[in-house]
């Protein structure tokens, strides 16, 4: 796993660097998507996520979900065009998973891509780390993760 300014960038994942989205290809051809470490840092403690309806087809760039933190609301954009096939059920009860485990249990949606050509625009491995790293350094983002609420010093509000 690569780190840039404390931002975690797992090399095996695919990234839409501009939109701050990660994607993991699943064996069935679908993509699991989530917010990257810089994106969750920028948003801050997330208090709510609303995903658009399963079955909805969305073009690249369109919002697949809206994310609300204690200081900001914004879209979660599609890195490729496709159909929403699932929303992470865990986020309803615990949206903070995005802050604590953004590349794991904090995934947001699964989509079935409709235009395979678009997948080539996502970066992975060293190419992703280089491009994303440059963006992180330029923006001077320092990533932070929320502590588990069960752990000492966990944030409460």
């Amino acid at each position, binding site marked *: 796993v690569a780190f840039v300014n404390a931002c975690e960038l797992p090399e095996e994942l695919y990234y839409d660097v501009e939109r701050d989205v990660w994607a993991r290809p699943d064996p069935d051809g679908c993509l699991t998507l989530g917010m990257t470490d810089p994106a969750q840092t920028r948003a*801050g403690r997330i*208090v709510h996520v*609303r995903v658009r309806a399963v079955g909805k087809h969305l073009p690249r760039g369109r919002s697949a979900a*809206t994310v*609300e933190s204690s*200081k*900001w609301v914004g879209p979660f954009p599609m890195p490729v065009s496709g159909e929403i096939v699932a929303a992470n059920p865990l986020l309803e009860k615990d949206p903070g998973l995005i802050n604590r485990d953004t590349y794991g249990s904090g995934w947001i949606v699964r989509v079935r891509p409709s235009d395979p050509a678009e997948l080539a625009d996502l970066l992975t491995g060293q190419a992703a780390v280089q491009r994303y790293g440059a963006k992180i350094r330029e923006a001077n983002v320092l990533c932070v993760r929320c502590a588990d609420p069960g752990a000492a010093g966990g944030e409460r509000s």
Partner: protein
Amino acid sequence: VKVRIVDLGRVPALRSQAAFHGVAHAMGRDTPDTIVLVSPESPYVCVGFHQEVDKEVDVEFCRQQGIPVYRREVGGGAVYLDSGQLFWHVIFHQSRVPPLVEDVYRVFLAGPVEAYRAMGIPAYHRPVNDIQVEGRKIGGTGAATIGEAMVVVGSLIFDFDYQLMARVLKVPSEKYRDKVYRSLTEYLTTIRRELGERAPTQEEGKRILIEKFAETLGAVVEFGELTERERQAIAEVERRFATEEWIFQGGGLPKRGVKIAEGIRVAESAHKAPGGLIRATVRVKDGAVDDLTLSGDFFFYPPAALRDLEAVLAGAPLDEGALAERIRAFYADRAIQAPGVLPEDIARAVLLAQDGPAS
């Protein structure tokens, strides 16, 4: 840097809310960064993007009073808006704002803060997004990414109808409403309250605000008009915002009491103890009990001691052990008889108000 100022003056309530949304949705890289200034002709209530209207707002009361309720594409809680406030909406292309939201607030709240100071109010930015004066809020703000735009919204509060704000909210009890009202009067202030007769008119305040935005952003401001594309986008937002489907769409954001100012929140809970139901209406300030009312159907002797217990708990940190300890000492000291209501039960009720849904 150039910033376009669009001064819409007084417009119908819906337009006052739709205008900045439309400008944001229409924004592209070539659109000038813009600040919209507007005040609604008549009062309305506005809920946060993910709130559930029925849980937050007394819809029936608003209907009777002819106060419309709208939903914004910005987060946060339900607010009451009227012509006593001058709203400023900063709409910048997201490529031209700092990457961190904290910094976005720092950059854009400087203008309103300096405007208050120029009026003679020692205001300051309390992170993340409050503007305060001597611990009281004089302007809440919010931020959202809408389309390609980063939007920061807030207001200069000339006057505020505290009573109506407390009245339009949906609350679990009148005790709770009273605490919200008193908390608002205590922790939310206005230009009029701070300056009395020396308060500037809204027009004067607006002039100062524009000047301070220009100064703090290091920008040249140009007064401009809405483009045809923006007018169309605003009309489209107005159509959407007026539909029941948009206004009453499912929320999902858990209700966690009423936030009065940064660090100050009023909430209520009920805890079923073996001896009966304990209701705690709590104002929490910076993680401690600021003001507490206990009620319920449990037996507590001597009855007058319940008020004393509330007073004893003021200032107590919201920590189950610390609360229970204070209550235990009080029970022993005053020889309290409360069968089935242990100190831990009362501590639990107070803590639930902090954590849980308020109604």
